[in-house]
């Protein structure tokens, strides 16, 4: 999804933070079991979803098919339509009513989203400071006041004409059935609907129109994007029954799969991009356009179906004629489309192979404002996404994959995505784009097309859990980005999230979408970092990729919940990950492992001739008492020095002198050892290893593996991986014994910054000063090559070197 400009502010619902009445409690002491199994917190496995995280033996989901006729009134910017819905009750329960989602009603002035939008976008009120309102907020308010928004519904009736009783509740509608719908029964009903299309720039929706006043056509042109544009069934599920939760803006959609036949009547000079296969190409496309599409199937680079020149021609004029485009889409959870006379259209076939969908057509639709940026990179990015994502999940299951440029920054639907980046018109009439804008375009296309897998096919519940689609998708778009060009910093690095995680204002990832205060770090970055760590640090790629693919294929065209993900990853990798889900997804702990102390142990040989000499050496190595040192400095001599003629036994023998008494007891000690004890002892003495004890404390609370780098006196380096389970009995502090032939010089915890440890200074022993960013910056005011203004410099003309006089 998109980061929405939420003038529709986050209504911070109070989520019940009260501790769940846990039947098992630590009632003495402070021990916290960070490895406590999650089962008791996860829903009980049942016949619909089992303990392995798989669809259960009686898994079911409803089937909802739509036949829709829609008509766009461009002048009035109004869409009207009628639809027939075929609802198949696959659940084992009888339904007395159906719930529908009326997403357009979010724009009504009395919608819950509007009425509960808080001034200040979710921050607590401040009574001392004057408040500010921006022009954007005012534009939003004015647009809502000037236009009648929301659905107008009519004619809601059964196939036989029986009128249906219905009740609208905000963005939802209950339809009461005259006769309850039993398991396995179907029902067909229809309705008319219409709404005024919102201006996306004014109200920030996930669809709407964008106006281009400067186009040659009188009054300019629009691009229309249609999403959440028809009343859709609320999902009815085994885990929540009707998933009715008011649409508040942040939490996106929970939807049913079904087959769609949609026809849209639009001005004849419009080009339509839509979910589904175009079934009447011969009626809406010219011969030439159809031939170009044919050619595109095997082309190496995208082929223009509508060229820029043709689009510019279309842009100038008007027509009274209208055309009807027909699309058919099977097994999709939603349906979206776009329409404009401004569209340039390019396409390129992608042979992905496999039995299910060997051929996919990748296509892009964009106005001239998209320019070269779109011509070069949009469709190619679509193909690249399919290549990478399919490897991690399953073959792309649809016949087309599209990227459409319009007013929406980035949003996904089955087979179609809306992507915002564009070129800039310069004063000289040229269109240019910065390197950053190029990255945004490629990045956003990968991200949104990636969403066609998650959640459009792996149909997670977005309204409840943003992270299930955004977190997984951000994780994968990082991988796809790196495979596009590793020079570009796409990925989510563990260190990117440390500032968020160490702060004291955040929620667990497992929080309902509308209650999350900052969706970016919470539902995108943190889960993506967590998955990266799981893959590259904890499980390794082989185990992770197998388990992840298992999750994707298990839930392809089905509806997974978080527990299905957690269970599958654990079950398919064979690794207990409950501590990981607890720490990263269920808590707000952060990672801060501190290496507090390293000390060396030496094994006593018990042989007095060796051990006593060692003690003597230790004593001699102690610094001289300051008193003695100062006396010497003053040139004071001692009595002993002045009277060297008076000596006795103790002048020759100190307290470390070995006598036969000690030698005898040593021999007795050896004689008293059991056979195995003597073997062990003698070997240990012979090997004469170094024994180091490392003391760690867990300051952040989140238990994690300890990644050690040991550097020895001979400059050799040893990496060591200690699994997180080391913390299981003492989650606050642990000691680890390290036995080595060598002498240890330095120890570093997590030297490559892989674990999101928020304080790396305490990862070093001996302590090392880690400069702050400012200190580092001052040290080497970067003479980086990136700093060159290449775009400007490249305009420099080649000059002949000046000849010497």
């Amino acid at each position, binding site marked *: 999804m998109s980061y929405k400009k939420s003038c529709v502010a986050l209504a911070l619902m109070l989520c019940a933070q009260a501790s769940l009445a846990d039947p098992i409690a630590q009632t003495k002491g402070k021990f916290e079991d960070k490895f406590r199994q999650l089962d008791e917190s996860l829903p009980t496995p049942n016949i619909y979803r089992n303990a392995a995280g798989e669809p259960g033996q009686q898994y079911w989901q409803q089937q909802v098919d739509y036949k829709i006729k829609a008509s766009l009134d461009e002048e009035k910017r109004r869409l009207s339509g009628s639809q027939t819905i075929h609802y198949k009750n696959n659940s084992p329960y009888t339904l007395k009513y159906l719930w529908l989602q009326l997403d357009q009603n979010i724009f009504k002035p009395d919608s819950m989203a509007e009425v509960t939008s808080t001034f200040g976008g979710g921050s607590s009120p401040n009574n001392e400071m004057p408040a500010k309102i*921006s022009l954007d907020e005012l534009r939003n308010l004015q647009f809502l006041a000037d236009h009648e928004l929301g659905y107008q519904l009519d004619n809601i009736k059964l196939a036989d004409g029986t009128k249906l009783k219905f009740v609208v509740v905000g963005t939802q509608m209950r339809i009461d059935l005259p006769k309850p719908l039993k398991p396995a029964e179907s029902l067909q009903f229809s309705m008319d609907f219409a709404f005024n299309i919102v201006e996306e720039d004014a109200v920030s929706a996930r669809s709407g129109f964008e106006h281009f006043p400067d186009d040659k056509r009188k009054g300019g042109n629009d691009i229309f994007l249609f999403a959440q544009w028809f009343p859709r069934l609320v999902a009815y599920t085994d885990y929540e029954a009707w998933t009715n939760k008011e649409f508040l803006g942040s939490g996106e959609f929970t939807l049913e799969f079904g087959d769609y036949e949609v026809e849209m009547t639009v001005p004849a000079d419009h080009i339509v991009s839509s979910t589904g296969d175009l079934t009447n190409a011969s009626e809406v496309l010219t011969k030439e356009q159809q031939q170009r599409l044919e050619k595109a199937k095997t082309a190496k680079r995208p082929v223009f179906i509508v060229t820029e020149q043709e689009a510019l021609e279309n842009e100038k004029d008007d027509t009274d004629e209208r055309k009807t485009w027909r699309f058919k889409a099977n097994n999709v959870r939603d349906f979206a489309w776009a329409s404009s006379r401004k569209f340039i259209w390019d396409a390129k076939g992608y042979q992905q192979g496999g039995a299910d969908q060997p051929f996919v057509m990748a296509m892009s639709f964009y106005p001239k404002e998209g320019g070269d940026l779109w011509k070069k990179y949009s469709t190619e990015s679509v193909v690249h996404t399919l290549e990478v994502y399919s490897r991690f999940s399953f073959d792309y299951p649809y016949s087309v994959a599209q990227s459409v440029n319009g007013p929406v920054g980035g949003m996904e639907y089955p087979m179609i995505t809306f992507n915002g980046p564009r070129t800039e018109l310069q004063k000289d009439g040229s269109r240019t784009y910065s390197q950053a804008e190029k990255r945004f375009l490629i990045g956003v296309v990968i991200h949104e097309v990636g969403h066609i897998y998650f959640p459009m096919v792996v149909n997670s519940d977005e309204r409840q859990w943003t992270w299930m689609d955004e977190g997984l998708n951000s994780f994968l778009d990082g991988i796809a980005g790196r495979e596009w060009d590793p020079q570009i*910093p796409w990925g989510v690095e563990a260190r990117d999230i440390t500032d*968020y995680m*160490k702060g004291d204002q955040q929620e667990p990832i497992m929080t309902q979408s509308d209650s999350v205060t900052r969706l970016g770090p919470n539902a995108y970055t943190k889960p993506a970092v967590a998955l990266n760590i799981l893959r590259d640090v904890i499980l390794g790629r082989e185990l992770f990729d197998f388990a992840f693919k298992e999750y994707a294929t298990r839930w392809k065209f089905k509806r997974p919940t978080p527990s299905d993900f957690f269970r599958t990853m654990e079950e398919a990798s064979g690794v207990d990950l409950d501590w990981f889900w607890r720490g990263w997804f269920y808590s707000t702990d952060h990672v801060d492992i501190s290496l507090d102390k390293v000390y060396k142990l030496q094994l006593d040989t018990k042989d007095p001739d060796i051990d006593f000499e060692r003690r003597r050496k230790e004593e001699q190595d102690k610094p001289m008492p300051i008193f003695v040192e100062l006396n010497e400095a003053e040139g004071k001599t001692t009595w002993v020095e002045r009277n060297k003629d008076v000596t006795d036994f103790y002048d020759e023998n100190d307290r470390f002198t070995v006598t036969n008494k000690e030698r005898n007891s040593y021999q007795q000690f050896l004689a008293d050892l059991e056979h195995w004890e003597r073997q062990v002892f003698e070997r240990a003495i012979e090997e004469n290893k170094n024994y180091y004890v490392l003391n760690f404390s867990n300051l952040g609370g989140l238990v994690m593996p300890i990644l050690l780098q040991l550097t020895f006196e001979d400059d050799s380096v040893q990496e060591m991986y200690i699994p997180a389970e080391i913390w299981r009995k003492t989650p606050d502090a642990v000691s680890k014994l390290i036995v080595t032939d060598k002498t240890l010089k330095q120890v570093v915890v997590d030297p490559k910054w892989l674990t999101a440890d928020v304080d790396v200074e305490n990862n070093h022993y001996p302590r090392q000063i880690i400069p702050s960013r*400012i*200190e580092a910056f001052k040290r080497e005011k970067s003479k980086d090559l990136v700093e060159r203004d290449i775009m*400007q410099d490249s305009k420099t003309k080649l000059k002949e070197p000046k000849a010497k006089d």
Partner: protein
Amino acid sequence: MRLILLVLCCLSLQLSAHEMKSAITKVLFNQRTGNIEVMHRFYLHDAEHAVKKLLDKSADLIAKQSTRDSFALYVSSHFQLKSDGQDLKLSLVGNELDGRFFWVYQEVAIPHQLTQLQLRHNSLQSLWPEQVNVVNIEGRGKVKTLKFTPQQQWQQVQLSN
């Protein structure tokens, strides 16, 4: 509450899925240097789209040092520290592009006997009402987090030692 109208001309908002519309700032009491170090981290996405509005369409954070400097200057004028109502004059140390992030650095010597701090950070909020600037205060006890929205202008924290 008084209502102040922010007058900004010709704003047409282009939103990208990857615009985070949030920045995070570390205010670090660095005992080594004796300075309060302020390190602002912006997503390149946000910053790039912001400079095109704040400066002009040819602004380019990756390609132009001048754009980076202008944006750093902009940020430095939208972040303020006060102690007991007294402005702490931050100097602008520099800026840096690092991967997906753009950093702006400021600093000021740690004043004597500082027990509380008032902060304000309203960068980009006149462009985007949904911009949230988060500030972590570190190096004086537990990390303390403040969240600045357009309606949260000044906030105060008590400092531990």
